[in-house]
């Protein structure tokens, strides 16, 4: 069985690694801004502006890829098991809609983890996913909170945002790493299930 999430999953993976790289650069930049401001102003300002603008655009593309991937992963799950309780549209709604995503974000991944854990072949991927969910869930909301604080603080001229910026980059880096781990657990689990499905079908043919 061909997985519709396979191609977008590969592209997503490439962008996740780019995002990790740019996040590490951002972390270094914000460290110099917070603790070696004069050195930063003299040598890093233009470089920081360039990388952070590029990073922002990469994050926008990454977010779109993530939504497409999540949609297609659920499409595959429904194809593998028409009884799977979350529809592709429902999965998107659970992560996009504010406040609803407080429940939805956890629900989408924990349901997926539970589904993988039910089957012996994908149990280890389900276990991994279960371990990553709490970290991803809390980091996601901490990152959102920090980014909103920085945006509001920049507009209203709050002083000493440099260190908040540094913490924000560190949280974002951890978040992207945990999401990469989540994607790395979901993709092979789906591939395993797809292979099992193929084997079952060929057995039926025999």
């Amino acid at each position: 069985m061909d997985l519709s999430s396979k191609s977008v999953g590969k592209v997503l993976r490439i962008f996740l690694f780019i995002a990790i790289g740019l996040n590490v650069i951002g972390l270094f930049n914000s460290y110099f801004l917070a603790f070696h401001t004069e050195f930063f102003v003299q040598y890093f300002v233009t470089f920081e502006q360039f990388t952070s603008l590029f990073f922002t655009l990469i994050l926008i593309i990454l977010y779109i890829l993530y939504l497409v991937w999540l949609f297609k992963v659920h499409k595959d799950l429904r194809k593998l098991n028409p009884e799977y309780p979350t529809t592709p549209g429902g999965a998107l709604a659970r992560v996009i809609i504010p406040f609803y995503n407080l429940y939805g974000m956890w629900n989408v991944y924990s349901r997926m983890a539970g589904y993988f854990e039910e089957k012996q072949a994908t149990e280890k991927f389900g276990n991994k996913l279960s371990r990553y969910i709490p970290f991803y869930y809390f980091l996601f909301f901490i990152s959102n909170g920090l980014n909103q604080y920085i945006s509001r603080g920049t507009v209203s001229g709050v002083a000493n945002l440099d260190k908040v910026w540094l913490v924000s980059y560190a949280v974002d880096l951890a978040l992207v790493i945990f999401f990469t781990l989540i994607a790395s657990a979901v993709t092979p689990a789906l591939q395993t299930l797809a292979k099992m499905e193929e084997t079952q079908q060929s057995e039926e043919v025999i």
Partner: protein
Amino acid sequence: MRVKISTEVKFSIGLILIALLPVVVLFYPLHEEFEYTGNIVPVQELGIDGSVHFTYVNTGVTEKLLDKLLLLLAEEDIQFYPISSDEYEAYSSYQEDMNVFKEMTIANAVVQSDPEEADLDAFEKRINEIMAEASQYYGDSLGLMVAIGLVEEANQWNFSEEKSFTIAGTGTINSDRTIGEVGGIRYKLLAAEQNEVDFFFVPKNVDENDGYLSNQEEAYKVGDEENLSMMIVPVSNLDEAISFLKNVQEFNLN
């Protein structure tokens, strides 16, 4: 050996280029001088016991297209003037020169506000104190108002009548007490208007045949265009400014 690149990698490269292209465009070098409204600042902020204000405008040079776009987003009334690459190269040395001019105008203000004082060490100390307090301001256009503030300080006067008036202005001061011309008149007047200034001093110079717009002519032009409510007061030397302020005081007393 031929390397086969998968469709996903090709697609990813395309997306990366889509993200990179606008960034490269926004970082395209663009050198333009800009100017926008600043503010008025009490001379007390420079450690002077006076009641008048000097005025500053925000100026600088853009390095890339992104700088210009960010300024346009942040400031409603901003003007850009294209500069050549030579002018751009000279800009940092021009800033250093401006610091020398600032020290000269402050020195003139200190000496001319109390010309009978002969203690050179006291002059030097005062100049250094004011220079230190004025370090965040660029340019030499604060000279006249620093001098008026120092005259108030030396004579224990208060020309603003305990804040009944707001007095501001711009202009350098020379060693012969004359007032020199400055830049940014339009935005200085707009900053003064925003702060409800009553009297605004500008360097006096009207010669309609010299082919350029003097500070005084520009100030009147902006005053008409923007329908400014303040009184624009052209002065050619420090004594004219002091005499005007004394007259205002007397008029107010009567």
